[in-house]
């Protein structure tokens, strides 16, 4: 029990959630207070995580069911910061729809707690518990605008499909437990040599479940509908935060117990990656709704992140962590722009609503231009480096097919990013949008744009941060 301070972030977060719930119930009109306190809780948790766990060596707690190492600490901090930014920039949106309620920040905190448990997990049961905690909170968040029929539909759809995938995942867990006699990752790894084939089935089922959570093709069907129907601020949360946790579990699950079965799962991952990259690029072309377009683009980006995981090396893992970090940054900027397309208490989310943006709002259009070129992976913006590291890791393993398909699909994807730029810059202008955005919205847009733009001047820093990730 002397290592209890290592799980202090989780303990602190869960106590805060309970406290905030009670506060929200007993104090009337406390949504603003709860929101501010939640922000503080996220920051404090991030600080605690940084202080207590970032420097320590790999430690396992609670009968080896929880692992604290550099990867988990880093991913938790990224999750917390991403959640913090989501929460700050969503308040204006929520107020517009009069859904600025205490439940919103608390649900976000709960799902973050679930993700932290997922990231920490070194055991199938713990992992499943975290996964369900975050999913339950996400179902409710998707329906948060409950008077809107699309939002309810999104939540229901997400719930049904997610429950199905959880079932598959659980079935995979039970298969693995049945044949290895344990749910602990390390014990499974020790038992591995004898009965490989049966375990492969378990891996496949769990991968299906995880691919669903991270919306990789062919388990992506829910993403466009849910992203479109959910309130935009929740969509922002969906596209960023759960992916971090899911990616970590992907890495941990594949590399700790099943590294020896790499021949089996590498093919699956390559397939998921190629399918996601290609499908994301091609399907996005026909979209007219910005949120649906972002959904397809995020499917594509998940494909690139998985390509790094598929490489099967530390380099690959590091590159996919870099990828997801830069992706989050770009997505944050993109959604900040989306949340600025507001006129008379109405948010606009059709592609045509961007028309002529560069004439009415030159700075907003310029930021979006930089973000979109970065998403398309054009140098010297950050998105290029993200892809560069991933493909470097992939080519080092001589997986040329994956690299070439991936890079060709960036060309296809460039088409729809260019189309947005074309609409902003080459088309006729429409009415102006409001300009009185909150401080945090402007801050997150400016900060993410600048970071994307000047990343090429200091590319080493991010590499240094992730270079300490050492799984194998």
């Amino acid at each position, binding site marked *: 029990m002397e290592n209890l301070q290592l799980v202090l972030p989780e303990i602190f977060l869960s106590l805060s959630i309970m406290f905030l719930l009670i506060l929200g119930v007993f104090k009337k009109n406390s949504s603003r207070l709860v929101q501010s306190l939640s922000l503080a809780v996220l920051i404090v948790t991030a600080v605690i995580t940084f202080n207590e766990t970032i420097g320590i060596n790999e430690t396992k707690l609670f009968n080896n069911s929880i692992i604290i190492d550099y990867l988990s600490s880093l991913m938790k901090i990224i999750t917390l910061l991403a959640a913090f930014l989501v929460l700050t920039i969503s308040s204006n949106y929520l107020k517009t729809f009069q859904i600025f309620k205490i439940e919103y920040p608390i649900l976000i905190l709960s799902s973050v707690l679930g993700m932290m448990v997922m990231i920490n997990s070194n055991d199938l049961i713990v992992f499943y518990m975290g996964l369900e905690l975050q999913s339950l909170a996400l179902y409710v968040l998707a329906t948060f605008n409950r008077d809107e029929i699309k939002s309810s539909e999104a939540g229901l759809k997400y719930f049904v499909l997610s429950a199905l995938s959880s079932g598959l995942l659980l079935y995979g867990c039970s298969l693995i437990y049945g044949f290895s006699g344990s749910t602990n990752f390390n014990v499974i790894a020790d038992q591995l040599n004898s009965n490989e084939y049966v375990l492969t089935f378990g891996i496949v089922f769990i991968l299906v479940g995880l691919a669903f959570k991270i919306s990789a093709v062919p388990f992506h069907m829910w993403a466009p509908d849910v992203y479109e129907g959910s309130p935009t601020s929740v969509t922002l949360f969906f596209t960023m935060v759960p992916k971090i946790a899911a990616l970590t579990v992907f890495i941990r699950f594949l590399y700790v117990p099943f590294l020896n079965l790499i021949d089996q799962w590498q093919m699956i991952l390559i397939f998921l990656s190629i399918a996601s990259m290609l499908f994301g690029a091609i399907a996005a072309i026909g979209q007219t709704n910005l949120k649906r377009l972002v959904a397809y683009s995020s499917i594509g980006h998940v494909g690139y992140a998985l390509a790094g995981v598929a490489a099967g090396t530390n380099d690959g893992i590091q590159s996919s962590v870099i990828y997801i970090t830069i992706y989050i940054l770009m997505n944050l900027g993109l959604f900040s722009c989306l949340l600025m397309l507001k006129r008379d208490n109405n948010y606009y989310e059709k592609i045509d609503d961007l028309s002529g943006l560069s004439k009415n709002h030159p700075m907003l259009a310029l930021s979006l231009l930089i973000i979109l070129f970065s998403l398309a992976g054009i140098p010297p913006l950050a998105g290029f480096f993200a892809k560069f590291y991933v493909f470097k890791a992939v080519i080092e393993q001589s997986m040329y097919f994956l690299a070439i398909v991936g890079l060709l699909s960036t060309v296809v994807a460039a088409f729809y990013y*260019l189309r947005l730029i074309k609409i902003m810059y*080459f088309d006729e202008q429409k009415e102006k949008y409001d300009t009185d955005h909150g401080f945090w919205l402007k801050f997150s847009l400016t900060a993410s744009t600048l970071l994307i733009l000047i990343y090429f001047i200091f590319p080493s820093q991010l*590499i240094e941060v992730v270079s300490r990730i050492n799984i194998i």
Partner: protein
Amino acid sequence: MNFPILSSLILLPSIGALFLFFTKSDKKNNFTGKYVALFTSAVNFFLSIYLWILFDPTTSEFQFVEERIWIKDLINYKVGVDGISILFILLTTFITPLCIVSVNNSIKERLSEFLIAVLIMESFMIGVFCSLDLVIFYLFFEAGLIPMFLIIGIWGGARRVYSAFKFFLYTLLGSVLMLVAIITIYWLNGTTDVVELYNSGIDIKYQNLLWLAFFSSFAVKTPMWPVHTWLPDAHVEAPTAGSVLLAAILLKMAGYGFIRFSLGLFPVASEIFTPLIYTLSVIAIIFTSFIALMQEDMKKLIAYSSVAHMGYVTLGIFTIQQQGIEGSIIQMISHGLVSAALFLCVGVVYDRMHSRLINTYGGIVSIIPKYSILFMLFTLAALGLPGTSGFVGEFLILMGAFKDNFLVAVIASLGVIIGAAYMLWLYKRVVFGKLINTDLKQMFDLNRSELFILSCLAVPTLFFGFYPDPLINTIEVSISDLIDQYNFKLASKT
């Protein structure tokens, strides 16, 4: 020499652009904006002249080399020039200020954004020509797409959207394979430093595929037949200054890339694929010349003539003869000056009549004589009349080609005749003949800035036509060393 002159050349236009960005921008400020841009690019030009003076042409070593750690343990920022690259830097810094002067007449709205795009473009292009690391090269090579896409798309003509997309996607598609090749080279040799790669050589097993990957990128950018179709569209729709940048400098990136990377890094593969290049070049020369002959749009005609001229360039490069490569470089410089001037000439009449169709014009020699004289000079330079820089380049290329492959050289020489035909016919139809269209009478002759720009381009065209020594002296040693290296590596099969 501690002063980082090359980095200054790269950074200075960007700083100018940043400055322009912050001095926004009602109608009155456009004026100041233009002078800021002009000043920056002029300073850059004089800086590059200074670089040329300091440059030592008696060695083929890279000079003014700067090296800094960029991505730790992975890539170093490394720039330097040798005889091959320095002329392209000069060309870039020379053409950009002229482009900026020319916007006076053609760009009416969003002027300061246009100037920002042009300046950033200049930064990237200088970066391409002096980077000594493959990743840095790729970075600059690709980054140029962004400003060019915007230049075509925002300030272009009626079909600008189609052209901008075509330009962007074609070039991007070509380049991604080069990125795969660059990463593969890193994986094979543990470095992307060009100098080290020159010394160590690249595994012969991989050379063919790597060469093809680089080729896919350069062929699109050159552009070589059959992937040239983006060029006429881009040229026709781009504003005058954009066409000038595109023709004068962007196309040269690929020719430079062929010399620096295809010949330098993959000699064995280059030897194998020389017939391919010859075939494509000859087709480009003959076929696109015929296409040019039938064009009704002046800009399109010049665009196709660019494809033909670049055909000579690729032909000259892969002769692997001293004369051939020297001729290619001089041809590129000359084409940079001449095609820029021709596009500006088209721009001049377009600004007045808003038509690029040849049959709009005819008989304008008596109305705008100054224009007609300068236009004639550049027409003759484009068809390679002795006494213009175009002749020196074509002559050397054909000389190199005759040494290497008689048949190819004969066919390519025939291209010169068709070249003369379409250029002279263009000139005849536009300038001479009867004055039928009476609207033309309202045309006024060149104004001061137009006269200035065209004279600026005419002087080096004639000077290097009569006295190409300064150019040849600069590149001679570098090229002969490159060829020695090439033959040595070929003999030892690495």
